[in-house]
């Protein structure tokens, strides 16, 4: 049978998919445990989510949570840092730490037959890290050196400066790694105190996914973490809500002599992760800049050829979160790329509402492929940890799809009007200032604020 090439084949109805069932348990010490049966290959993943992170860093001690998290695998009991690494290697484990704005997330993946060893090791690291001085000195020095290297990476420089523009007076305004002055000022005792305060069973959620019953998974969690005791140490003080600044600088330039491209960030504080119109924001972002076939990327990459890729997105946090466009554009096109970007941010607020085609594409790309995010034990357990982080219901995954499918073009425009505003967007450029200065002037935002790379 010859193929009919006059039209694309029809796509059938969406196949049925059951999202994994999550079972919640609470251990006697207050640790919240969520288990998910995942029967594919004999692999098991533990994800420990600790409440705290960038947000819990006191002013002047930026980087504290991150260095504390980093110190966790530097030794426990009789094991040195090297021996911890050796123990992980012997069970073929993948160990990873992510220090986020609101949580520190530890992930350990190992083979089913090493589950007990893996869980026991993770528990020893998290509950009883050695926190030795020589390890601390070395880890801190490596972080200072890393900071220095980041000065050469335009995306890192931009990220750092943009967060500070967004949150001048809030702990969210710094990178997890902190800054040079704060790292130099940190003492080991502060790290130990931070560990006692943050690493407590009642501040943590453990997600376990693997090829066994909920009961067996819970038992593994209990065996490893049942003896974890709370400490009397408390987090210094509760962090307040974010107050958006009234007049953020409009245009900021970080000079980078001879740069081949300008690294751009354009955005402002926008919404919270638990906003009721979150599904509308997802669809709006997909149309605007959240995927390859979005307005921003088609304009700046495909139509204008300014960049290898441009995108928009929310940097979600529990509190007010930034929305930003990011792209690395050819220096000569910097001002025009900014102008085009602002025009797109404006367009979706009403002048150019999403077309039916854009809506179909955005909704479908967000929902129809969703099941593929649940292939591995690690994917599943990290997704469930996100529910814990943002206090979302266990039914979230299955409910999200109909909610996204119910979003209309009007909903998108309303969401854009409420949460996107090019008139108050901060524009940040890391680029070759003498080359781009004249054209930036043509934007009409006045003289830019000039900032150095080592903010």
């Amino acid at each position, binding site marked *: 049978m010859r193929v009919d090439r006059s039209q694309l084949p029809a796509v059938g109805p969406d196949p049925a998919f059951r999202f994994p069932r999550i079972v919640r348990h609470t251990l006697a010490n207050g640790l919240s445990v969520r288990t998910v049966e995942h029967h594919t290959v004999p692999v098991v993943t533990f994800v420990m989510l600790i409440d705290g992170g960038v947000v819990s860093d006191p002013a002047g001690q930026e980087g504290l949570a991150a260095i504390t998290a980093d110190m966790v695998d530097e030794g426990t009991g009789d094991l040195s840092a090297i021996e911890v690494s050796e123990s992980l290697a012997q069970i*073929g484990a993948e160990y990873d730490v992510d220090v986020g704005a609101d949580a520190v997330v530890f992930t350990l993946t190992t083979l089913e037959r090493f589950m007990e060893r893996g869980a026991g090791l993770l528990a020893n690291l998290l509950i009883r890290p050695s926190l030795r001085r020589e390890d601390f000195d070395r880890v801190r020095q490596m972080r200072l050196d890393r900071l220095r290297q980041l000065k050469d990476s335009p995306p890192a420089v931009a990220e750092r400066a943009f967060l500070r523009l967004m949150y001048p007076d809030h702990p969210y305004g710094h990178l997890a790694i902190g800054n040079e002055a704060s790292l130099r000022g940190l003492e080991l005792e502060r790290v130990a105190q931070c560990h006692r305060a943050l690493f407590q069973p009642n501040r943590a959620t453990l997600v376990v996914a693997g090829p066994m019953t909920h009961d067996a998974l819970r038992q593994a969690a209990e065996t490893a973490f049942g003896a974890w005791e709370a400490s009397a140490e408390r987090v210094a003080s509760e962090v307040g809500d974010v107050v958006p600044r009234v007049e953020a600088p409009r245009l900021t330039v970080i000079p980078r002599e001879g740069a081949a491209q300008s690294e751009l960030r354009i955005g402002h504080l926008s919404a919270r992760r638990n906003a009721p119109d979150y599904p509308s924001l997802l669809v709006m972002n997909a149309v605007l800049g959240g995927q390859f076939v979005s307005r921003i990327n088609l304009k700046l990459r495909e139509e204008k050829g300014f960049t290898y890729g441009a995108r928009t997105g929310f940097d979600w946090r529990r509190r007010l979160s930034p929305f930003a466009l990011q792209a690395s554009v050819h220096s000569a096109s910097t001002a025009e790329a900014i102008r085009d970007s602002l025009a797109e941010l404006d367009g979706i607020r009403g002048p150019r509402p999403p077309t039916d085609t854009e809506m179909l594409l955005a909704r479908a790309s967000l929902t129809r492929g969703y099941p593929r995010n649940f292939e591995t034990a690690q994917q599943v357990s990290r997704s469930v940890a996100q529910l814990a982080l943002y206090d979302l219901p266990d039914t979230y995954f299955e409910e999200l799809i109909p909610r996204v499918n119910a979003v209309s073009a009007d909903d998108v425009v309303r969401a854009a009007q409420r949460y996107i505003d090019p008139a108050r967007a901060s524009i940040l450029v890391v680029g070759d200032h003498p080359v781009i200065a004249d054209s930036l002037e043509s934007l009409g935002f006045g003289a830019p604020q000039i900032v150095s790379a080592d903010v």
Partner: protein
Amino acid sequence: MRRVDSPSLPFSKRTLSNGLDVIVHEDHHIPIVAVNIWYHVGSKNERPGRTGFAHLFEHLMFEGSEHHNSGYFPPLQQAGGVVNGSTNTDRTNYWEVVPTSALDLALWMESDRMGYLLPAVTQQRLETQRDVVLNERRQNYENRPYGYALMALAGALYPEDHPYHWLTIGATEDITAARLDEVHEFFRTYYHPANASLSLAGDLDAARGFELAERYFGDLPAGPVAEPARAAAALDRERRLVLEDRVQMPRIYMAWHSPAMFSEHDAELDLLGDLLANGKTSRLYRILVYEQRLALDVSAAQYSRELASFFLLAATASPGKSLTDIAAVIDAELARVADEGPSEAEMDRARAQTEAHFMYRIQTVGGFGGKSDQLNAYNVFRGDPGFFAADLARYRDATPSAVRDAARAYLRFDQRVLLSVVPRGQQALGLPGSDPVTVS
């Protein structure tokens, strides 16, 4: 529920009459199918002065084909698929992961761009994608710290007419000069069923997979059988080079020629890379970063390739520390491993990690490195999609003495490239006796 204690990757394979290999792997856990196509073409098939074509095609292939003459992303994304592709020196791959309901769509589109691409490759499309590629080059090489190092190394390891002399991204002047007729000719030579391999993995049964492959690809004509690229390269001495870049800390790179992918000592060198520099337990990390703090980081790996591989070691100096001291530590450790070989404990650890990683590799059906991609890799480079078990055996069976022999035979001090990348204006921070090199 099927449970495997030793990882395995079962499959069925057929070859269509036009030469297209079709491989199907069933995995019914999630209602998705991975569609993965390898074309046995990479930058090694380009000519000096005409570099960057294979990668440029990776861009053009997403822009449209004769019967769907617009972007490839919208229909596939609207069906819930994810789409991507990549190019290296040896091969180009294109893939989709789609809900089972969109398998026909994905196959229709892949077959249309295999059989009917050129009517859609116009001068205007070429120019737009050329600009995008030049921006990609600026972003990933020119504006990135140490971004020029691999170009300098490739230039020093391989003579000018060697297919690995240039990087896959290509030279700026070649990309700029690419002519439409040459680009078309490149496609006709390499992008056809007899030079391709189609792998389907996921929630489908093998019979249906073969039937659909025949339906969509069966009537595409086979193209010419490509001449396998061949070339020899060797170093007859130690070459020392220094490159200035916008970096804070100097970095030393050491590169050697090494045996081709899957040939004798390839796996041993891979293991050697791990025991030298993978994780805190590794020899060089422990000495350079942990104990002596001469370096901020160290890495070592066998970069396995089809014609010939290279082994690359790199370490970034801690502030105020010298590359000369770092190189001395590395050389001492290389001499020791070439003399004594690894310990049994080191081998046990490396084997445990390898076994676990082979298990982790069979968790996903699609994407880069998923099961569909692995089956195509084995098929294209070995002619046998079933090489998974034998591949694992290469690592299981590796002995300490074989690792020692590999180090001795290949990581020789008198046949290597030493590249120092130093902050601008500070060539004196490079190894003594280094010749300045510039790349662009």
